[in-house]
């Protein structure tokens, strides 16, 4: 069995969908930046999932079935959206 990337369990559907939108949907990402609790509640996340997302707790998110790549890129896109990264574009 693969160590790093695993089958996304159905139990993590809402969490993975939320991470996908943070990665790829500008409107949802903006909404999350403005109101994380409201955005995650609307996505149907469990309280523990919302808390793990807010604290960027990768291990907790992955343990609940989040796809590691989504955790990685959602966090990067949030950093970019918050203007927290000095980026050189080519």
């Amino acid at each position: 069995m693969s160590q790093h990337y695993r089958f996304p369990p159905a139990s993590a559907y809402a969490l993975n969908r939320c991470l996908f939108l943070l990665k790829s949907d500008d409107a949802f990402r903006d909404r999350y930046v403005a109101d994380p609790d409201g955005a995650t509640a609307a996505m149907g996340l469990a309280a523990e999932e919302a808390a793990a997302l807010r604290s960027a707790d990768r291990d907790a998110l992955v343990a609940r079935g989040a796809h590691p790549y989504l955790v990685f890129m959602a966090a990067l896109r949030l950093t970019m959206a918050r203007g927290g990264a000095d980026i050189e574009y080519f």
Partner: protein
Amino acid sequence: MLVAAFALAHTPQLIARPATEDRDLVLRVHAAFARVKRRLAELTPDVLAVVAGDHVEAFFLSGVPALAVYAGREAAGTFGRYRYRYPIHEPLARAVVEQGIERGFDLLYTQDAPLDYAFFVPLHFAMPEPAVPIVPLHVNVYLPPQPTPRRCYDWGRALGDILAARPERVALVASGGMSHYPGTERYASPDFEWDRHTLDRLREGRGRELASLTGEELDKAGNVELRTWITLLGAVGDARADVYCYEPSWHHGNAVVEWRL
């Protein structure tokens, strides 16, 4: 006919560089991309067939194809501030779908799925001028269960046969690799030794050996994306690799390679 074959890294830090990334390293990889662009200009392809693994962008919760072909009029996507759009070479895309299925590969085809940055980054740096149309070919690399390396190699062999019989001059481009572990606890410790050993084998024209790897071995080595290279290897056979660069960063083995046909 198949006139060229390349593999290019596509890590997003090559296009949007945060302060964590060594600027000189990024520029050295860019120089290798520029070499590919010059070679493509010499080789005058009519179309670029790009094999890349979607990064959980186009294919995820609503459907996860092992192998897919973009067969619409154009393919478009976004990444951060980038907005990109490429015309698709529809006759070739359609031939790949029809003949691929005829040969026993159950391909998904799409006319409007978004195009992931794994396709965009190599094209951003290496598309010759004037630009030519593309055929995007997706291989599932990130969502288990992925196609086996053997299946990727066999698909590449069929793809090579299909391209060989076509009137267009086709350049095949594999996007991705080498070792990296995005989102995992191993992110800061890629397996550069595995990469170098693999590049040695490719320089010797022993690409077919990669078809015998297991999915677990690729996952362990941080090389799930090498399925795109293995697909290409099926098409180029025992051609020898010319490694333009191998630049290991703190999280990624960046390689740019040409197979001389």
